[in-house]
């Protein structure tokens, strides 16, 4: 292919907002890691499904449900690849308003799950607006930061970014969705950091955040949190204060992970999970199942794959000449990276239990789709970055 023809191809891929030809230049490095991780997840969920009762229907098996969600997510991701991400960014204000509307709606007509109002139901569809809010925030901030550019250095524009993020965060907190509320601040901070705002603003925000976290740790009883959230925090800070209820999960998780040793007990042979000692092993604690059944080797491979995925994402952000594209990449990498590190740290008893799923592996339709939308966004930036060279 001559260089002129390549340029023409590139040009062609950019003159239309929706162009399926972009799929031919997709980044197989990122997508390949995604497939391998999904493979790990399905294997683990296949194992977990065996402890379901014998009369469970085919579509209630964890791995079947996860596979369906993945196919849906992949379709959406590929569609995102075809769409020019700058067109999506220009729609960000609309996205923001729609998601905010859904978050308000879920407060009134949502279905409760574990003390939080998380779900909107319409027929067979369950929508979790808090999942969508993560991506909407990334796009909105990319839109804002790319528009204000250098002016982010001024306190006024810095505050603007916080108004945008704060609106979503407050709505999430109203739903008492601690997991999502924890993800959003790192995303905001990371995107602001990437956009080059003043360090002392960032540090003061982080300091306030740390002070609040310290309050949570040491004055947890006086906070307006749900009891189950308090007990989770407490059981981490003082494991002996409530050793039995939340502590039980921590002990069982540690035994599950530890007993995996170097090579694991083999897929489907994890006793901790299959004898139901370990609650929630197919969602938030799936890494414990992998560590038990596939051992240190399996756990190491999974962590490494995640690391490679994230590194690739950051390199993409670094190399993309378009600021908006870079910011999108940073946001998506942060969403996935935060989930990965916090979830695994919880499973390995380095952090208190908060209820964050593990991307690509935990069973959960909405979250799987969110993750795949992040992947789609990363891929979409990737296929277009060459144009700016």
């Amino acid at each position, binding site marked *: 292919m001559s260089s002129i023809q390549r340029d023409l191809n590139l*040009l062609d891929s*950019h*003159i239309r907002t929706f162009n399926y030809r972009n799929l031919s230049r997709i980044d197989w490095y990122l997508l390949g890691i995604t497939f391998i991780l999904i493979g790990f997840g399905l294997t683990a969920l296949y194992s977990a499904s065996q*402890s379901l*009762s*014998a*009369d469970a229907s085919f579509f209630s098996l964890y791995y079947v449900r996860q596979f369906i969600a993945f196919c849906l997510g992949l379709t959406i991701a590929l569609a995102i690849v075809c769409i*020019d991400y700058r067109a999506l960014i220009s729609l960000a204000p609309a996205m923001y308003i729609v998601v905010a509307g859904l978050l308000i709606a879920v407060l009134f007509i949502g279905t409760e799950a574990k003390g939080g109002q998380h779900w909107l139901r319409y027929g067979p569809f369950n929508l979790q607006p808090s999942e969508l809010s993560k991506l909407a925030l990334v796009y909105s901030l990319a839109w804002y930061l790319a528009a204000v*550019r*250098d002016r982010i250095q001024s306190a006024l524009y810095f505050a603007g970014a916080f108004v945008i993020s704060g609106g979503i965060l407050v709505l999430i907190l109203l739903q008492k969705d601690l997991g999502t509320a924890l993800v959003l601040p790192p995303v905001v901070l*990371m995107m602001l*950091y*990437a956009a*080059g705002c003043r360090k002392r603003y960032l540090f003061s925000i982080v300091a306030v955040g740390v002070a609040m976290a310290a309050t949570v740790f040491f004055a947890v009883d006086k906070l307006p949190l*749900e*009891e189950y959230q308090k*007990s989770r925090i407490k059981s981490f800070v003082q494991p002996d204060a409530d*050793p*039995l*209820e939340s502590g*039980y999960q921590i*002990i069982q998780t540690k*035994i*599950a*992970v*530890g*007993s*995996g*040793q*170097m090579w694991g007990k083999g897929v489907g042979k994890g*006793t*901790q999970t299959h*004898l139901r*000692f370990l609650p929630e092993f197919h969602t938030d604690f799936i890494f414990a199942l992998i*560590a038990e059944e596939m*051992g*240190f080797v399996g*756990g*190491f491979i999974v*962590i*490494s794959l*995640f*690391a490679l995925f*994230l*590194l690739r994402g*950051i*390199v993409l952000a*670094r190399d993309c*000449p*378009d*600021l*908006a*594209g*870079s910011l999108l990449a940073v946001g998506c*990498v942060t969403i996935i990276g935060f989930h990965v*590190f916090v979830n*695994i*740290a919880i499973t*390995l008893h380095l952090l208190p239990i908060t209820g964050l799923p593990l991307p690509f592996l935990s069973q959960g339709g909405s979250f799987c789709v969110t993750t795949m939308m992040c992947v789609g966004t990363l891929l979409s930036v990737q296929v277009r970055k060459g144009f*700016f060279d």
Partner: protein
Amino acid sequence: MKPTANGKRFEGFERRMGWLLVAVVAFSALLCARLWQLQIVDGQVYTKQAEDNRLDYEVIKSPRGIIYGRDETIVLADNRAALDLVLTPALLRDAEGVCAQLGNLVDVDSAALIASVERAIKRKTPFEQILVKQDITKTERMRVEEYSFALQGVYTVARPLRRYYHNHAAGQILGWINEIDREMLDRNKPRYKLGDIIGRDGIEQRYESDLKGTDGAMIVTRYNGSVPQLRTDVHGMPYIEVDSKGRSLALERRQDAVPGKPIFTSLDIELQIECERILRDELLAEDIVDIQAEGAIVVMDVDTGELLALASVPTYDPNIFTTQSPDQQTIIDSVMKDPRKPMLHRAFQTHYPPGSVFKVLLAVAALEEGAIDEHTTFSCGGSFRYSNHTWRCWRPGGHGGVSIVDALAFSCDVFFYNAGLRLGPEKLNKWAHLLGQGETTGIDLPREVPGGIPSPDKKAAAAKRRKSTNRDDFKWYPGDTINMSIGQGMVDATILQNAVMMASVLNGGKRVRPFVNMALGPDVSEQLIGDNTLRIVSAGLLKCVEKKQPPSGTGREARIEGLTILGKTGTAQVAHMSQLKGRRERNVPYELRDHALFVAGVTNMKPRIAVSIIVEHGLHGSTTAAPVAKKVFDYFYLKRKQSGEPGAAPEAVNVAMHGEPVE
């Protein structure tokens, strides 16, 4: 879209991305190191824990707090150990045989039992206990034990079950409990779990958070594939000692349940039972009423507000909510849907027109506000005319010239029509508020109603609410004041409020907050009523009970030799006069008959008590309700003391009287 490179990069962007790369590598390394530590360094330890011993988690339910009577040796509600018969499918040698055997021994459906055993095996949960029968009897337990050699895998588990010792007595006050339902569970997470018990009325509901306690838990290490056997000690506390194969287990950790806090009530349960008996049985036996009476009696310590008895008849037995039986639901439904409303406490969960009992309040207000004084006299000719309307006195012939003392003693309506007009509705409202009418008394029991005292503002507001077009509905007329003066019209008060009002007259003009939980302690206001007013009103109320020669006081039937009793009768109209025209009293249909009310108190004994009574459709306060008060005083101060039974030991004291008996 036209392709545009987004201009020059920010300074230092690549450096910042470089830091992110470093961070990702560092975090990943940290996680791998931790994984290495858990799996390789400590792996042996955890593997041993996973293989040899497994941890098992059992919740220990906290026993519900005990409710005591006034005498702290008397238990009103506690927990007994109910034995549940359970089986573990995996341990049955011959499932069908065992189920058939159980069918014979404890009368359960053996086919259904076999089905649930098979279901458990199919569901791969063979070690989870299946309930065979709840709350088995002693005989059933002995039968099962006799055949225990053939019933391997079948055993009993104790569980605390609420027991109300006095059955119907104070049923509405103690309240009832049941298993928490979905809706309440969502509201009370995570303190409550599915299957937990929650109080639904009375003390059980009001003091739920004290009575509940905190669940505990046990973690035991156990052998591979075995099931810990939950047992219960004599106190009903579960423990785990051995597993299903008889091997002893080590208790890793145990966090005992914290039992619910006890509630010490002010209830004198003997007096309570007596009050209920008088209302339910004696009135009918003595032909004072035609059919079994419905009504309420409040007995309150006037100095503290402690409720010694709070009887409401008919009542119900809270045990029906906890005693399992095949027709339990039918029994519960029959109580809940009973048209006589046994679950309603008639002393404070509903209100009645107070009738002439209200005159006590009017007398206090008129004297305090200076509308009348001790010597003010009105002439009663049997009726009272005011702007083309006529209001009758209950005594057709009239009372002649009456002062406030006689007006209270003989319950002269005309006197109070005049006094009410002089006082006006605003000042009357002020005093109603001071003495606790028209607002809740603050009793520590659920579902108290406030009653209502009419005022010009409230009348207009009510007319506005129902979008009335009649101008008369908005305007307050003197006629409204006149009706209000004898406790009719729109005046509504609870029997408990009447007791509180009476207590103020007896205790030196203070308002008390009635209560049943002794932990609350008395809540008494400063003196609200002047000494002079108290002296005059007391004289009238004393004459009402003491005056023997005709015309006698209306409360005459409450008189007991040796007790200084103040009292006021009341008769609350149920139907309009026109509906009753020409009928003799006992020919009036039951549901149209007037309510009989009485409030009274004793001043020369300790403790000083006030009683407030209603006998629904009892016709006259003087002939129906006053004798009830006499029985209560007689029992409380005299009879029980003579028979030497335990309980409050009242004694005669010299109390400075506000007025001498007037004969």
